[in-house]
């Protein structure tokens, strides 16, 4: 069980690190928000799943799942609000220079 949870946590950490690299590397808000959503959806899911495995089945695990579902419901709302505000305030999405 411990091995399984460590494996899950490491996989989640991998996605978190990739997302952080993306936040640094990508060129504009719209692309960066993709990286953040990568973190939110898969990285957090794998981390919390690993922790839940480690905890075993009791009420704390249930609460972890509640936090997880909250993340899943709320984070798309935030990302959508940010992108909509960016779009409405007249920000143009970055495009690759086409010759």
């Amino acid at each position, binding site marked *: 069980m411990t091995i399984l949870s460590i494996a899950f946590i490491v996989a989640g950490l991998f996605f978190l690190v990739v997302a952080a690299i993306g936040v640094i590397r990508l060129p504009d808000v*719209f*692309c960066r928000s993709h990286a953040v959503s*990568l973190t939110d959806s898969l990285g957090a899911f794998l981390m919390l799943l690993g922790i839940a495995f480690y905890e075993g089945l009791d*009420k704390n695990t249930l609460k972890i799942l*509640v936090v997880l579902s909250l993340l899943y419901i709320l*984070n*798309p709302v935030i990302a959508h609000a940010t*992108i909509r505000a960016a779009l*409405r305030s007249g920000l143009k999405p970055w495009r690759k220079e086409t010759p």
Partner: protein
Amino acid sequence: MALFVFWVLLSASFEWIHLCLGLVCSFIVAWINSGHSPFVPKSRLAVRVLLYLPWLFYKIVQSSLHLSKLILHPALPIAPQLMTVESRLNHHAAVVLFGNSITLTPGTITAEVDRNTLIVHAMDQELGEDLAGGKKEMETKIADIFRDVEPDL
């Protein structure tokens, strides 16, 4: 009712005075907010949404791997674009679920919703194609969930 379940999950104590307090609180909140919610969830709908979630998760894993490959690629081969997706969903909750699924899937983000036309920002051509072609699949599934709810859009 759902609020009461939420209360029990959060407090995780089963003494009856706490349960009664939670029941009273959730009824008050539900009473204050009644009439604002656009739809009343039905149990069969909830079951279908639960059945939809594993498929969504499969899509999330697939596109996450694709996106991390894009980010870690040294040349950063991205081609972000805005695209308009017109869905044939005719229910508020269905459109909300559709937009939420699009945003939750890495690589695509809903930027603007107007009735049932969504403006979506996609990370590269393939993910965009996925939205135009493959996510018809997503739309079909959501339409299937809401098949016996009368349209209100």
